């Protein structure tokens, strides 16, 4: 596919890069990425993916924009308060780059619908804010062998790991089961610095672009941990768990589980816990 002059101009600063060029840009334009959550992680992630020219971006969110979201969820603006987040997100991404196809999934993912949603995409970004969705997304991606970029944020900390099912560890290799209800901090304890969400969301977009371009080294088997107070990054090696409940050779989990919501205030305060 030949790039138009407008595309050459728009994407010139990345076409220039070694490992991108016209062929890489073409791969980006043909890629299909599902971003789960249009919150603190999904907003910056989808914003950069749209800017880079990802051909099709799916946005999943069942919530409406609230004023308390705007401190970090940069695709939504003050005027959007009250409208569905996927609509607000679509509007902003389209304004940034009209040639990106934005598909809105204004739903809560559960065991009955997630496999149908993710099968339309090449890679999934988990920007969810709750444990039931995080485990559901991990298991669905492992079962359907779909690459997944996980990230979690909490207060001043963030972590990110890319999951290539069959190749590297999954989220359950790291944390086999969701924590017991009492161990999860309440939403009020949650709290998040907007820039932590931004940093991690942008790192997720970086993982997606490397996957699409088949270049660089993704965070497979490596958990990258960011602390905003110290401004430090560290990497922890994560091995595959040979007894992992979902991605080992003898998985205990063979069908998807709908865990109960831990945090009743999630819809009110965006309980970002890890």
């Amino acid at each position, binding site marked *: 596919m030949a*790039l138009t002059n407008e595309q*050459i*101009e728009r994407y*010139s*600063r990345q*076409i*220039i890069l*070694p490992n991108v*060029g*016209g*062929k890489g840009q073409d791969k980006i334009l043909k890629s299909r990425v599902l971003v789960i959550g249009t919150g603190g992680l999904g907003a910056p992630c989808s914003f950069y993916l749209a800017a880079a020219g990802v051909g099709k971006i799916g946005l999943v969110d069942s919530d409406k924009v609230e004023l308390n979201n705007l401190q970090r969820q940069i695709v939504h603006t003050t005027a959007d308060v009250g409208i569905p987040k996927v609509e607000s997100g679509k509007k902003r991404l389209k304004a940034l780059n009209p040639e990106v196809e934005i598909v809105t999934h204004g739903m809560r993912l559960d065991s009955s619908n997630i496999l149908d949603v993710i099968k339309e995409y090449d890679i999934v970004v988990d920007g969810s804010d709750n444990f039931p969705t995080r485990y559901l997304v991990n298991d669905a991606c492992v079962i359907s062998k779909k690459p997944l970029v996980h990230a979690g944020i909490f207060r001043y900390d963030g972590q990110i790991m890319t999951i290539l099912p069959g190749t590297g560890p999954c989220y359950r290799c790291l944390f086999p089961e969701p924590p017991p209800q009492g161990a999860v901090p309440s939403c009020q304890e949650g709290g998040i610095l907007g820039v932590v969400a931004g940093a991690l969301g942008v790192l997720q977009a970086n993982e997606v672009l490397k996957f699409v371009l088949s270049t660089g080294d993704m965070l497979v088997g490596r958990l990258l941990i960011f602390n905003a107070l110290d401004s430090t990054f560290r990497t922890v090696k994560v091995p595959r768990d040979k007894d992992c409940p979902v991605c080992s050779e003898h998985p205990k989990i063979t069908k998807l589980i709908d865990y109960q919501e831990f945090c009743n205030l999630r819809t009110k305060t965006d309980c970002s816990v890890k």
Partner: protein
Amino acid sequence: MEEKKPDANLDLRGVVCPINFVKTKLKLEELNNGQILEIIIDAGEPMANVPRSIKEEGHKIVKVDKVDNHFRLLIEKA
């Protein structure tokens, strides 16, 4: 030495940096190794930057001619 006949050419007069290089890079991607691309670029900033960037990508500039206020470059794709 006899000059090789270019396999493709681009007139980049009036095209500013870095779009002139981007267009050169895209055109080179379409060629096979050893083929020759002829480009015409403006003197000044384009001439100061484009040849350098082409060399950084590993290609060879086999000939440079000054024509009026422009430069004609023959690039061998590597």
